[in-house]
């Protein structure tokens, strides 16, 4: 089985030109271990709302590519987001769901994807125009790269192992991250003016 950190490493350079929103806990710790960038926003609570935040960004910044790095537990907590995304179909939105079948960041409790719930199937049935599931780093990297470099709303479900870093707290303050992210977006707007 593949590791999420290897997936992140594989697309790390492709994320440079995107605005990236992540869920809390293990995933942002992994991404920060590869190197924080001002275009990364880590939503370190409010489970489920990373994708809604991405939708707000995507609708307001149609010329920016938005990448949301979601988790199975977080998405299961806000399944309605898939129907809202599908309703507005932002063409600049890539929704990556790392499905480790677990609430890893609170100690590893199995989620319903471990007993058969199919998040790609739910996304497709919600009306997300392009969906796929991937199980190898190569497949993940090519699917994610294709999605990032093309137009259209896509959900990629990446089946990964339920392992991650030991600790999740980094020295990046929540507010520091938030203000830096907004300022970064303002600087993009200033550049394109």
């Amino acid at each position: 089985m593949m590791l999420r950190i290897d997936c992140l490493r594989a697309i790390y350079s492709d994320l440079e030109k995107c605005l990236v929103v992540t869920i809390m806990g293990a995933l942002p710790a992994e991404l920060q271990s590869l190197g924080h960038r001002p275009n990364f926003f880590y939503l370190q609570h409010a489970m489920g709302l990373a994708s809604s935040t991405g939708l707000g960004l995507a609708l307001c910044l149609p010329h920016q590519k938005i990448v949301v790095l979601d988790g199975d537990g977080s998405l299961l907590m806000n399944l309605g987001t898939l129907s809202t995304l599908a309703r507005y179909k932002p063409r600049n939105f890539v929704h990556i769901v790392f499905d480790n079948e677990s609430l890893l960041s609170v100690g590893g409790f199995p989620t319903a994807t471990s007993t058969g719930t199919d998040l790609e199937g739910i996304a497709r049935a919600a009306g997300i125009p392009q969906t796929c599931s991937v199980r190898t780093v190569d497949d993940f990297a090519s699917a994610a790269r294709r999605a990032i470099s093309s137009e259209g709303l896509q959900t990629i479900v990446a089946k990964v192992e339920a392992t991650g870093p030991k600790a999740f707290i980094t020295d990046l303050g929540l507010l520091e991250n938030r203000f830096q992210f907004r300022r970064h977006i303002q600087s993009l707007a200033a550049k394109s003016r």
Partner: protein
Amino acid sequence: MPVSLENSKLIYRGLKGCGIRLLSALPETWLVHLIQIAEDDPEMRLVRLAKEEEGVGLSAGAHFAGVKSAMLMQNHGFLAAINGIVSFAHLYKIPLLMLVSYRGSFGERDPWQTQGGNVTEPLLRAMNIPYSCLDASASVEKRIAQAHTLAESSLQPVALLLTRDLMWGE
């Protein structure tokens, strides 16, 4: 339907006057006109939600993008959005302009609205959310502008309760 079209227009004008360009909404009876006006306005991006809590994320994304937004919901929708408000808007200092129809208060005939009516103001107070009731057409536009100004300067959620006196003409 005795929902006041005139006062709905007034509220909408107040929102437009603040430069609101994105409105997230989940309907209830009192909000029908407001949502329709937003839908018909090419300058407004109306986002119809499945659950009100999504609106916190949408408004945060809009704020990061430099776009002014507001949330339209009923008080039970506010209840459904509370974790998002605390764990995102408060934690990350996100300005939210929340327009909340105040069901279940004096004059309410629907039994199912009454519990939510009881807890709306106590919850707003417990959460330290500045709020004000919109109850007279004369002060609507000014108060919306003031609420918006406070949300933007304090970087926090601010609520306006849309009351029966304003929204419902019987």
